[in-house]
């Protein structure tokens, strides 16, 4: 018995029941489309998170005030103020490989100009900050190291802040009152969009940290220090040296916990992508359930079909079909239904993700590997759920089958 003629026989049988074949395949179509779309959404979110992590800058080490013993990076933020300006200067001076350091203080406050006002975030930074973040200006110029040394009343502002206060006018050269201190706007940043936490990164005012500490926020400690090293392979060594340096400067005896937290960009990326990986897995599993339900649909229909076609099976056996021919025929029918359903499902899934990204603005990413996996899985579903009905058909006794009413 040749595979060619069995294939021919199976396809003829499917063609005889077009409506039923289509409806059976529909279960698989929906299952595969759901898997493709859901995994596409998950991967899209992951890619977006990765892009945003990359926008933190290359080879960046972040040092936060206060200690955290938990693995999550966010719990360490806003801890006790233990980082001093001198700590940042010591890092800049003593740690090899460091090419840029930015002292950071953060606050939120009301800002005003003319008759407009807006509640926004104030970031105090060094002149290196925009280079570390790879954040160019759309208009104007950045503040300089001299501005930082002199605590000048200058700032650059984000796109959102600019449009809220000045509308369509150019804010460069205008005066912005922050806590009643007039700051001159030197430049407007290029838009960066939403962060991984959904915060609008363009709703921001960045000024020299010295100005922020003296004139706006007050206090003498830094929230964190951003450090950039020149080479990616220096990042671990630099991180260790920063820890040693800060422990020494803070007089922490061996065995005691750090009073600061050091994270590098890779760790932040890992934490963030772990979240989206869980989301992808979750979405994929839920969609996978519908694929399994589709498979059960195939088994159901194949079992009904075996019963309904008992006489046909008997006739085939009478004219010389082996049990294995019948088994192969029903398996091919099941696999054809599931794999044709799989191909159509992949097309629908890609279409659904396109619609989601264009109408709901969800980023989606469909990788070739997810298409291959979805197709293989749908074919496997056909074999798995088709095998039992096919074996049942093959085991029929030809005499009984011929007499079946």
């Amino acid at each position, binding site marked *: *018995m*040749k595979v*060619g*003629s069995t294939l*021919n*026989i199976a396809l*003829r049988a499917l063609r*005889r*029941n077009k409506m039923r074949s289509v409806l059976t395949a529909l279960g698989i179509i929906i299952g595969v489309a759901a898997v493709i779309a859901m995994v596409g959404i998950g991967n899209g979110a992951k890619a977006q998170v990765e892009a945003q992590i990359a926008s933190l800058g290359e080879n960046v080490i972040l040092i936060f005030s206060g200690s955290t013993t938990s693995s999550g990076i966010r719990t360490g933020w806003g801890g006790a103020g233990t980082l001093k300006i001198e700590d940042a200067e010591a890092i800049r001076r003593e740690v090899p490989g460091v090419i840029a350091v930015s002292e950071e203080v953060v606050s939120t406050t009301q800002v005003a100009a003319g008759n407009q006002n807006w509640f926004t975030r104030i970031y105090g930074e060094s002149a290196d900050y925009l280079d570390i973040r790879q954040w160019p200006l759309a208009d104007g110029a950045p503040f300089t190291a001299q501005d930082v040394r002199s605590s000048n009343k200058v700032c650059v502002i984000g796109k959102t802040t600019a449009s809220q206060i000045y509308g369509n006018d150019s804010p460069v050269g205008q005066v912005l009152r922050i806590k009643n201190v007039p700051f001159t706007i030197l430049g407007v940043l290029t838009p960066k969009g939403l962060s991984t936490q959904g915060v609008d990164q363009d709703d921001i005012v960045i000024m020299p940290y010295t100005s922020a500490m003296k004139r706006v926020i007050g206090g003498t400690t830094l929230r964190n220090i951003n450090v950039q090293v020149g080479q990616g392979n220096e990042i671990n060594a630099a991180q260790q040296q920063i820890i040693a340096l800060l422990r020494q400067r803070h007089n922490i005896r061996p065995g005691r916990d750090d009073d600061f937290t050091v994270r590098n960009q890779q760790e932040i990326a890992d934490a963030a992508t772990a979240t989206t990986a869980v989301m992808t897995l979750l979405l994929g599993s839920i969609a996978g359930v519908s694929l399994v339900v589709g498979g059960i649909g195939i088994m159901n229909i194949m079992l009904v079909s075996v019963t309904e076609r008992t*006489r*046909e099976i*008997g*006739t*085939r*056996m*009478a*004219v*010389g*079909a*082996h*049990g*294995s*021919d019948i088994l192969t025929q029903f398996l091919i029918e099941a696999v054809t239904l599931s794999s044709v359903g799989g191909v159509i499902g992949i097309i629908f899934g890609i279409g659904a993700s396109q619609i989601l990204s264009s109408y709901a603005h969800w980023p989606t990413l469909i990788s070739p590997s997810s298409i291959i996996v979805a197709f293989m899985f749908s074919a496997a579903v056909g074999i798995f759920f088709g095998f039992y009905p096919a074996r049942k058909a093959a085991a029929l006794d*030809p*005499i009984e089958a*011929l007499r079946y009413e």
Partner: protein
Amino acid sequence: MNDGSVVKLMDVHKTYHTGDVDVHAVRGVSLEIQRGEFVALMGASGSGKSTLMNILGCLDRPTSGRYVLDDADVSQLDRDRLADIRNHKLGFVFQSFNLLPRTSARENVELPLLYGTRHLTSAQLRQKADAVLGSVGLGGREDHHPSQLSGGQQQRVAIARALVNDPEIVLADEPTGNLDSRTSVEIMGIFQQLNERGITIIMVTHEADIATYARRNVVMRDGLILKDLQVTQRSDASIELEKIAPIDSETPS
């Protein structure tokens, strides 16, 4: 070639075990059928004629005894070997036609070829099926589905299917059971023509008048052969047909 006998049954028994009771359906049948014979196997229901037919058709194996078909002992072959013999040497015609629904006459006739050992192209399949359909008078109806054909036409498709692999024997199980009397005679006419061409036919029937179209009648009772005689006053389908008032029996049902 052999000595002319195509079927040889030697003391064949068949016993079914249903629960605690053993049913002796066939209890010692010896029968020899020559090449080119037309045998009607008769008997009341429960006489064992269907069981014997299943054994002759290689659908079932005897519990004891030997069955030699075309010089080969087929009594103890396994399922797959029996399937091959059914495909190569036997053709089946059933009471209820057993055509595949929603399938053209041509594709129904091609069915045994698909399970054969020779690999034929679809053009060869088509050519062969169309030739056999033409020989049973269904030329031009190759693309009709069973639902578009009358009972007599459906049975002709089934006969074409039985003939397509050039079998040694055509086995017919109550071939006229679902047909009106005129169509029955037409089908007998086809059988007589095939028999004239040298094809061996074994037919189960319980209708005495249908049995008169055969050359030999074997009557069974209680699992044994009661009578085995040549038909003396044989009916000729072509003459009988003229006696029946001509009606349009070939209108599709």
